[in-house]
């Protein structure tokens, strides 16, 4: 009996420390990046584009990358929402009786979710070369939206499939079509979940570097049109970190700090949204 107690005690200690370790890892990441970034952070950093010699420690900021990343993430999330929301709705309305199909489609989406973003980036680049296109904001947006599409559909699908069947039936019995039921009733019922899915995808879109590395290019200017290349924050971090100069490296950490803050804000926002936007929801 005593042996069991000792064993349990030891394992509980190990398990407790594993949990502490995970929290500590997060704190260590946040604190070390912030401490390194703090001296390099300034208003100039987020309000100006790089001037001549910026990458040798001269004046300028990373406004080009911040704006580029925001445009990229907003447009690709929007594009993925336009194509993904109907898929998530179809899976749970008109296909609801065809269990095998729904299962199969979810299976494919789960597999696509697991495909590394570098594969999307590489293939996107090949396709661009094939059609003779140069790196551009548009190519980046399309690649990123394809990469976040499965994430968004599955996240929305998980929420939509929880809608009770009786709500569908109530809507049909009032004479609504499948489309009306999906877009007017179910979307409203699932609004917080859909918003969370959109924010999750936005976070993925803004943080991913491997898919934009070859498709979106990099430039020191804020893009005027979709055909121009655009800078993105992850790549700005990557390139500045590659510099041998400590000033430029410090700026890379400052850029990493800004990106982390954006991602944190999105994460907090999605928590608030899933808590608050419930007022149109019918509780069963």
């Amino acid at each position, binding site marked *: 009996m005593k042996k069991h107690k000792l064993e349990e005690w030891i394992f509980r200690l190990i398990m407790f420390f594993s949990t502490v370790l995970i929290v500590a890892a*997060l704190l260590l990441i946040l604190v070390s990046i912030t401490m390194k970034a703090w001296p390099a952070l300034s208003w100039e950093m987020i309000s100006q584009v790089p001037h001549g010699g910026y990458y040798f420690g001269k004046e300028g900021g990373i406004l080009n990358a911040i704006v580029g990343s925001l445009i990229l993430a907003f447009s690709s999330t929007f594009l993925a929402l336009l194509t993904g929301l109907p898929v998530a709705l179809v899976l749970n309305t008109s296909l609801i009786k065809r269990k095998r199909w729904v299962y199969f489609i979810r299976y494919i989406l789960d597999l696509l979710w697991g495909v590394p973003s570098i594969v999307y980036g590489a293939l996107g680049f090949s396709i661009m070369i094939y059609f003779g296109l140069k790196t551009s904001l548009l190519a980046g947006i399309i690649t990123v939206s394809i990469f976040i599409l499965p994430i968004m559909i599955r996240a929305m699908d998980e929420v939509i499939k929880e809608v009770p069947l009786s709500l569908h039936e109530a809507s049909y019995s009032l004479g609504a079509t499948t489309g009306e039921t999906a877009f007017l009733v179910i979307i409203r019922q699932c609004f917080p979940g859909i918003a969370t899915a959109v924010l999750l995808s936005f976070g993925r879109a803004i*943080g991913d570097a491997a898919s934009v590395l070859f498709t979106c290019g990099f430039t020191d200017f804020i893009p005027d049109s979709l055909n121009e290349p655009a800078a993105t924050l992850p790549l700005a971090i990557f390139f500045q970190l590659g510099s041998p100069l400590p000033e430029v490296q410090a700026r890379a950490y400052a850029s990493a700090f800004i990106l982390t803050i954006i991602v944190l804000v999105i994460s907090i926002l999605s928590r608030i949204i899933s808590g608050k936007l419930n007022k149109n929801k019918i509780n069963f």
Partner: protein
Amino acid sequence: MNFSLVFVFVIPVVLIAGLSWKSAAVLSHSSLSDLLFSSEWSPMKGKFGFFPFIISSLWLTIISIIIAVPVCLSSAIHLTQYAPAKVLKIMHPVIDILAGIPSVVYGAWGVLVIVPFIRDHVSGFFGYESSGYSLISAAFVLAVMIIPFILNLMIEVIRIIPSELLESALSLGAAKWQAIRKVILKKALPGLVSAVGLGISRAFGETMAVLMVAGNMVKIPEHLFDASYPLPALIANNYGEMLTIPMYDSALMFAALILLTVVLIFNLLSRQLITKFENYR
């Protein structure tokens, strides 16, 4: 509305067909076994031996899984069985934030903290000379990155198991730890294994963070503190030059195809296990 489903079917077909079509050139140039098991890498001469990259990728994945899985498993048991519900409530945002941090930030953190630590304190202790940009640094950063992913899945898996099972074991006189080990973990095993499988496929395809800390030298890593050059880093690093050297783009597409195949296989196997786990329950 049904038209939207086209995307779901077109994307995987284009992915697989596109990559196979592009890598056909290098496959007709040299045999599959040469590509996979030769170590000679000189694109200028048309020699593409992916063996060093494949070995690097394998080692990296294995070591990071060895680091991550025990931590995830014990933390998952702690959070679901022992800790008060409040702790799990605090841990959920922690896991979400860890999962949401972009991989390039993990890479920057690796360069800032892990690489100097390995160079100054760890490699010397084991008697190796190292720049810090090494297999072990990359594996460690990768482990921290996949911990939230695996932990989340494991918590879900353990939670699915009905609490009556634990209660009946307890009522038969088992100690809590005995009940957890012999009932819950046994029941959850397929689910836990599939969580690890999904973690493996995640680790195998991770690019940016690994690219930043792995060292990127074309050779088979000899020890933990040696530089490594995994497949995703190879693709990311060389895409710029691939158009100037013949067959190079095809070779890199072949690398992407290897990546896709391995990831898909691990994903398929894990999903299969999960389905079994859910039916079994």
